């Protein structure tokens, strides 16, 4: 089974801090994604990446950046954390092209609280 591992389950950070959320997958998937999940809003796509050093903005990229230096690792960066970024963050990966039809494999999520 593909495993997607998010480094932290719970994180508490202060307003203005720079925050790194790490995600690692072990199935050599080309595509990786970061979502945030908020009650009543479902999943919203922040950024995604089709390949190493490649990134694309999703629906809500403001206040975030990403890094993909290695194929297996996709990092989400909050440049200056704010309280409205308190949320559950989910990382996902999947194969390329038609293998996208296999669906996503998600990590367990990181619940970030910004105080």
């Amino acid at each position: 089974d593909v495993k997607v591992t998010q480094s932290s389950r719970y994180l508490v950070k202060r307003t203005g801090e720079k925050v790194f959320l790490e995600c690692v997958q072990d199935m050599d998937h080309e595509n990786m994604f970061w979502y945030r999940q908020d009650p009543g809003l479902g999943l919203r796509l922040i950024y995604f990446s089709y390949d190493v050093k490649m990134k694309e903005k999703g629906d809500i990229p403001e206040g975030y950046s990403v890094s993909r230096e290695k194929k297996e690792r996709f990092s989400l960066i909050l440049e200056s954390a704010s309280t409205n970024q308190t949320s559950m963050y989910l990382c996902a990966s999947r194969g390329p092209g038609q293998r996208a039809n296999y669906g996503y494999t998600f990590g367990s999520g990181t619940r970030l609280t910004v105080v």
Partner: protein
Amino acid sequence: AQSVTQLDSQVPVFEEAPVELRCNYSSSVSVYLFWYVQYPNQGLQLLLKYLSGSTLVKGINGFEAEFNKSQTSFHLRKPSVHISDTAEYFCAVSDPAASGGSYIPTFGRGTSLIVHP
């Protein structure tokens, strides 16, 4: 752009009763349909998917879903639920035409299934 509507935000049901969670999407010629489940404090897990062929799709944990093209629906069903089915359920639709060939799905807002003893 594709839109996905999960008509019920919360569905309470008693154990061993049948359940249906509803999902409708905006029309398209060819879409791929998914249901994911999220147990408390966990990530999402793929429950089942429809790509082509038979409109009745069976998934894990006794769930099934039926693709209805004319009604643009993909409702999830289980004939007899257990306490352990209590979770959030998300419908997702991948529309290659609407997503520019990226296959990135649009998710519904989720339905919370609450199974009472």
